[in-house]
């Protein structure tokens, strides 16, 4: 088979089994777009801004576990995608970005729409390539997919100069099936001796805690994690990125940990003598002040990326390996050892945790005549019976969703945890809805975040994506306002957005249905109506209490045992 470079790009995507490409055309990728036009195997989704393309591919990847793909042009096309690429990088999401580049002979001459894409993206990709020869194109794309999806996943960018896609230059095409890179061999198994040591530590522990992160979801290891929790009876907490890997409605789940985690999770972290960290990276939002982190614990850390281990917190028993494989080995060794944890001390430990839980740290004023954002999320949970794929933007609404919408399955909670990208939620939801056309998909957002990628409402219209936008409208950049209230004596510097649009009319001008809810009593009915419209995008503008804050909270520089529960309830 003889193909041009442009045809090779498209054929390689077909050979990779790619379903959707999210993109936006431009000069440098015109040959590729012509090849896209001439086939119907790979479906192209036209976004309205390249940031949306990257987020949509990202949302698709998070929901399916497959590699997300986007296609952008050179110069501004690539730079617009950078925020989305960095978002995927921080959360280790498998993604391949194909970017057009000016023709090879003019690279470096400041040509029209030229930018050093490989240079600009280098710090926020797992790897990137500049293809300088059409004969290297297929192999490079294969490498990109392999690197993006193996080991610790991440975005890989392939920069393709226009002349390498010339439709008049045809070369023989064969897509390489197997690829091996001498310089890249991700760990495939944990060290047996280390795992043995970890199991011994777990069985000897008196106050153990399992702390899991996004790595469990990325490696599809939820069922194994469930087995581990059942086998040991240990309490389990999760990071923002790991929510849903273990059912959040189950008793052994003690809530999210960290800055806005539950009192019981954070106190358990402070008191534990054996921390079992699985696919989590000890992010600063999780650890609080490092010197005060888990002061009594022996720490076991399972991670596929050796550089995550002992990066922020020194670990006692490191295990480098894929989460699923290590958990399998761990379970086998536990079984062989008779799986006999310290039952008596474990019972005492649980009694202590239940006491912390009884404080009910996630309570809020249910009698308010304003819609509390927590109430809005709880209502969303009831109306959708916990079945949603829920994407989120960044800020207070994100924390309220994480606290009040318990996910019982992995890949249902989709948000930008590492980079904290406002504008992520709507395009990510598009990717999810395309992957699962029959599923209920919603984006919880705020009036500040949603405006950052509002243009994607047009994409939703074009492809008939019936997702629901639940916008918690408090008239502020809520999390910024909260910090200004706490730490800047309520000087609300530029956290209030004047001149907000009429969101109902805005949604309708894009061809969707807009609804505004202002009273708590109207909320459930409105949400039922919205989710009842199965073939329409409904944009719900929920006017919430503008002064509500996210609690509990650990202020920056504090330890897990130094939480604020609410203004009324302070703990000694």
């Amino acid at each position, binding site marked *: 088979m003889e193909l041009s470079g442009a045809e090779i790009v498209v054929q390689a995507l077909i050979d990779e089994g790619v379903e959707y490409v999210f993109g936006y055309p431009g000069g440098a990728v015109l040959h590729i777009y012509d090849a896209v036009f001439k086939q119907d195997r790979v479906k192209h989704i036209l976004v309205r801004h390249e940031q949306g393309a990257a987020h949509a591919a990202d949302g698709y990847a998070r929901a399916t576990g497959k590699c997300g793909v986007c296609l952008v042009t050179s110069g501004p096309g690539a730079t617009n995608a950078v925020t989305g690429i960095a978002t995927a990088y921080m959360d280790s999401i498998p993604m391949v970005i194909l970017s057009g580049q000016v023709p090879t002979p003019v690279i470096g001459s400041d040509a029209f729409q030229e930018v050093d894409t490989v*240079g600009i993206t*280098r710090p926020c990709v*797992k790897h990137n390539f500049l293809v300088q020869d059409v004969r290297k194109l297929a192999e490079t794309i294969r490498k990109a997919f392999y*690197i993006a999806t193996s080991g610790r996943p991440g975005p890989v960018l392939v920069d393709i100069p226009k002349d390498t896609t010339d439709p008049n230059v045809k070369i023989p095409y064969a897509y390489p099936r197997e690829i091996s890179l001498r310089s890249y061999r991700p760990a495939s198994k944990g060290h047996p001796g280390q795992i043995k040591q970890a199991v011994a530590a777990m069985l000897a522990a008196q106050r153990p805690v399992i702390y899991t992160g996004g790595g469990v979801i990325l490696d599809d290891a939820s069922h194994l994690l469930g087995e581990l929790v059942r086998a040991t009876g240990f309490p389990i907490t999760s990071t923002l990125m790991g929510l849903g890997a273990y059912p959040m409605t189950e008793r052994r789940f003690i809530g999210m940990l960290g800055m806005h985690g539950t009192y019981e999770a954070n106190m358990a972290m402070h008191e534990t003598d054996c921390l079992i960290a699985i696919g989590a990276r000890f992010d600063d939002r999780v650890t609080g002040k490092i010197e005060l982190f888990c002061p009594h614990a022996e720490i076991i850390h399972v991670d596929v990326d050796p*550089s995550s281990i*002992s*990066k922020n917190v020194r670990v006692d028993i490191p295990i480098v390996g894929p989460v699923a494989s290590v958990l399998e080995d761990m379970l086998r060794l536990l079984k062989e050892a008779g799986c006999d944890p310290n039952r008596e001390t474990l019972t005492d430990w649980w009694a202590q945790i239940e006491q912390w839980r009884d404080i009910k740290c996630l309570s809020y004023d249910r009698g308010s005549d304003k819609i509390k954002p927590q109430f809005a999320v709880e209502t969303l949970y009831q109306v959708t019976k916990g079945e949603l794929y829920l994407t989120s933007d960044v800020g207070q609404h994100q924390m309220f969703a994480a606290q009040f919408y318990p996910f019982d399955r992995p890949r249902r909670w989709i948000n930008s945890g590492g980079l904290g990208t406002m504008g992520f939620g709507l395009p990510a939801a598009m990717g999810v809805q395309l992957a699962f056309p029959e599923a209920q998909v919603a984006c919880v957002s705020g009036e500040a975040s949603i405006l950052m990628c509002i243009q994607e409402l047009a994409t939703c219209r074009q492809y008939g994506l019936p997702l629901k936008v639940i916008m918690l409208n408090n008239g502020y950049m809520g999390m910024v306002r909260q910090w200004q209230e706490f730490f800047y004596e309520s000087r609300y510097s530029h956290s209030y957005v004047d001149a907000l649009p009429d969101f109902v009319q805005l949604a309708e001008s894009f061809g969707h249905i807009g609804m505004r809810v202002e009273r708590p009593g109207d909320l459930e009915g409105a949400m039922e109506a919205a989710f009842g419209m199965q073939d329409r995008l409904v944009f719900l503008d929920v006017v919430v209490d503008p002064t509500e804050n996210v609690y509990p909270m650990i202020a920056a520089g504090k330890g897990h045992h130094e939480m604020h529960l609410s203004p009324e309830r302070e703990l000694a």
Partner: protein
Amino acid sequence: MRHIISVLLENEAGALSRVAGLFSARGYNIESLTVAPTDDPSLSRMTLVTAGDEDIIEQIKKQLNKLIDTIKLLDLSEGPHIERELLMVKVRAERADREELKRLVDIFRAKIIDVTDISFVVELTGAAEKLDAFIDAVPAGLITEVVRTGPSGISRGAQGLTL
């Protein structure tokens, strides 16, 4: 503490900037960095001198290993090794100073590799301290220009850093 790290990496365009970018992005200290292709033209060998406490050095090594282009890495400071650096110095060498400069060159087993009526270029290879000592020994005010390569290193013994 000072560490000297050898890295074997793919001789690809941009490999060097990945290493340099890693150090600046993560705020690691970089004292010197030398790189050139090896006998196998598809491989580059880099010698990198850095400093930091043990935790930072550990992270530096892990982050270097994580780069897709990195094939192997060896912290030479962990074992017996040899370091060599090349120095070239341009000195003012007018009649009155020529003899003393030549004596110094002999003492340090350096070489004069360029001569004019009023200047020498001196070449010297050795460990960094020896080069420092030579520069200190040149009488004040005579040095016009100094260029150093930064150290290259290799481990002692039969074991090699190879594929």
